[in-house]
């Protein structure tokens, strides 16, 4: 993106930018207030507020669960377990960390515990049932096909990664979490997060190259 020099920006433009920023800040603040209100209500047992929180965070939980399992039924079981644990533990949520970080931690713990069952891991590696009903949300058939191909390749590659590296990779590269957020939700040191990610990337690049040949 080309950065404009402050002198070249006209006063009207500057005013417009400031207004935009103020609106964004107001929106963000109101969103945060909304969330903290819903958290408070959900802590007291309000199911509707919990549903609001579910809608807000479902995408993260589902995508992590799905890419860790690549099986619709297992991902659904896993995501359900995450939300139910959150619902049960909500009264203990102190609010010292962000709600999202707290939920990330539950997701990570539940996923890693679920993954300890190596039988499930082994059986899922070759499972391609997730492709049935795959919908990328793109109406363009060419792009939809590319998305499916990319997902197939990713499934094959992620299946060969050790679970901690796989999780680190998903959290960073597919969910866009920062190193600090990954460290906070996994309990790993920042250095560990960095090294696991570096190894995961290295391993995946090598595997992707081999796959091309």
């Amino acid at each position, binding site marked *: 993106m080309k950065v404009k020099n402050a002198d070249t920006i006209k006063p009207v433009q500057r005013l417009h930018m400031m207004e935009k920023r103020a609106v964004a800040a107001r929106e963000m603040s109101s969103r945060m207030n909304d969330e903290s209100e819903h958290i408070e209500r959900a802590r007291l047992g309000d199911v509707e507020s919990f549903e609001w929180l579910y809608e807000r965070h479902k995408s993260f*939980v589902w995508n992590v669960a799905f890419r860790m399992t690549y099986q619709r039924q297992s991902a659904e079981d896993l*995501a*359900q377990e995450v939300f139910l644990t959150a619902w049960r533990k909500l009264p203990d949520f102190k609010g010292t960390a962000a709600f999202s970080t707290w939920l990330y931690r539950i997701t990570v713990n539940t996923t890693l515990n679920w993954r300890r069952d190596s039988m499930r891991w082994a059986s899922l590696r070759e499972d391609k049932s997730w492709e049935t009903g795959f919908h990328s949300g*793109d109406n363009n058939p060419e792009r939809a096909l*590319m998305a499916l191909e*990319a*997902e197939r390749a*990713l499934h094959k590659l992620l299946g060969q990664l050790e679970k901690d590296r796989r999780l680190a990779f998903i959290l960073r590269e*597919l969910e866009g979490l920062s190193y600090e957020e990954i460290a906070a939700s996994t309990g790993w040191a920042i250095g560990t997060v960095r090294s696991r990610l570096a190894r995961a990337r290295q391993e995946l690049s090598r595997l*992707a190259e081999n796959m091309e040949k």
Partner: protein
Amino acid sequence: MKLDDMLRNVKRFDPPETLRERVMAQARAHRAEQASWLAAIGRLKSRPAFRATVALGACAAALLLLVDSGRFKFAVPAPSTTDAPYHLAYNEMDLFLEQTLGVVYEFKSMESSAEYQVDEDAARFINNQIETIYRINGGNNA
């Protein structure tokens, strides 16, 4: 396909509607369960017997904690010095002595009779027993 291309082309998935239904159904069920527990506790709390039980339980728990932490000790019982013969109850012992002594006195008064030799061993045995018992009890008055 290179890794970067792969990552550029993958899409985020939308969770199925069944997940929302399952999660909310479970949350409602859990809430109802919790509410029924709370109501049951609320009802119980108004009963004096329940309050008394809780108070008693709390006292017992506190006492257990004190004992467990070592701040409070029960009196240590004196070490037992009882040996095997003392297992006889005192009443039984008295009765035994009385009867035995009676037999011995009776026996001694028959010393001149013809049965004397026959029962000599038995008399000696009984005498020894009595002596043992008295010795154990702290005296030798047989």
